[in-house]
């Protein structure tokens, strides 16, 4: 995960909160949050190598896919649920997001923007885009539900997910002026803090 995204997320997570990170990778974000914010954190991950790395770091990690995890943890409660760069890989992102907000007070979601100008150019040239935030070819990608920043915000408004904070990043994962003025065209990635209606 880019340092900038990790920093944004760390800023949004309150000290000593209980956090679940769906698709936690090697656990580095949770490790940062434990070190800097003294959180109680759990990660959900499916990749064997990543799980071993989490355990090595002393991170609590649960081997499950995200959909299974969210369903199984229905009765649990967290202050913050994080889903970084995974929402587009899920079978039913809208249902999953609703469930995430049920088990947590706030959700942090990051997603690649399919409306980013480089994606549009690639499509104009008749090709599926391959960019920094959409790094895989069409036949290798795990993405199922790609969307633009506008699409995502429409889903949030239709589903009564409150957007508390939003930060847009350019292709070098930095907060850029253009990305913040016209995110749907110039943001490569969006980082959202969502709350309940």
């Amino acid at each position, binding site marked *: 995960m880019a340092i900038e995204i990790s920093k944004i997320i760390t800023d949004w997570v309150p000290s000593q909160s*209980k956090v679940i990170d769906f698709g936690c990778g090697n656990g580095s974000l949770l490790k940062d949050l434990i070190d800097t914010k003294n959180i*109680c954190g*759990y990660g959900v991950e499916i990749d*064997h190598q990543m*799980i*071993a*790395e*989490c*355990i*090595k*770091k*002393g*991170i*609590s*990690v*649960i*081997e*499950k896919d995200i959909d299974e995890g969210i369903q*199984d*943890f229905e*009765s*649990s*409660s967290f202050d913050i649920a994080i889903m970084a760069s995974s929402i587009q890989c899920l079978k039913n992102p809208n249902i999953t997001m609703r469930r995430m907000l049920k088990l947590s007070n706030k959700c942090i979601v990051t997603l690649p923007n399919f409306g980013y100008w480089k994606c549009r150019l690639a499509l104009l040239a008749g090709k599926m885009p391959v960019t920094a935030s959409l790094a895989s070819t069409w036949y290798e990608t795990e993405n199922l539900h790609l969307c633009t920043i506008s699409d995502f915000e429409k889903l949030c408004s239709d589903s009564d997910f409150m957007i508390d904070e939003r930060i847009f990043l350019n292709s070098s994962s930095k907060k850029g002026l253009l990305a913040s003025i016209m995110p749907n065209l110039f943001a490569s990635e969006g980082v959202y803090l969502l709350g309940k209606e």
Partner: protein
Amino acid sequence: MKVKTELVHFEKGIELASGSKLSMFDLMVETYGELDEEKSNGILVCHAFSGNHHAAGVSENNDTPGWWDQLIGPSKAIDTDKYFVVCCNNLGGCSGSTGPTSINPQTNESYGKDFPLVSVIDWVNSQKMLAEYLGIDKWKLVAGGSLGGMQALQWAISFPDSLEKSGIFAAAARSSTQNIAMNEVAREAIRRDMNFHDGDYLKYDVKPKGGLKTARMLGHITYLSEKHMDLKFGRKFQDNSSKVDGDVDFEVENYLKYKGEKFSNSFDANSYILMTKAMDGYDTASNFSGNLEKALACIKARLLIIGFETDWLYPPKRGKEIQLAAMNVSVPCSYVTLDGEQGHDSFLFASARYENIIKAFIKS
């Protein structure tokens, strides 16, 4: 690897959860590796229902490798070059620790069927006394599979400050109805053996070996997976030359009979009943009005729970229940499912991922 076997005597005895008391008792203990000066590198491994203190290596009295030899040893997952590994035969067992075949100091006869009911909590309490004897205030890790995993879990609850980590493999917070049912069929096979004499067989100088053999054969089926049995035996017929008896047709029959026979020569029937009763009776939440979360809330150790895909005795979902309850009360806890082809017995066998995860957990 330095292997040491020792019979440790506890003169002051132990109060059991059932209310009974053993006025004194012995634990047969085996250790591997060396305890460091700070006494901070101790790892306790707890055996499953029919296991014993011989967990690894070969000892003076035992030239077959221990039950967890694949995981315990120099440079293995539980590295005896770095850690001092301890395993004891549990109270009520029949491998040297005080159990039904021991002499009751009150009567000067074997306890036999009168040996008091023991529980997972009693085992953990006696293991704590062993830790004190060894001078170990805090285990680096307490780990075990199956009934051993239940002890590792109970350790974290009974003595939260006395262990850093708990490894709970192929285990559950309590036995299921099906587990109890299977065990009762096994016990009934023992009781129906005409040599059982209502548990007093030692007085008649006989052993209910037939019943014990049948019990073990049933047990064995539950420890293996359907797939593993298919791969190992299929529907192959046993060679005439190596049949254990004339009734055998299939290889699987021969295997179960051979294993059952071997077991019935070495295991005590009253111990079998006692150990399975302890397994059936264990319920982590029983002292907390059935609420597992409340039972786990006091835990300070980090937990690693491992389930095995092909285990139908304590399937992965039983481990996941512990993980969920632990997470809900903010106890640090990881959960992993391993492929393990050997069913419930998978926890005994090393695999690259199993070893890697245990190593990472101990190091963390």
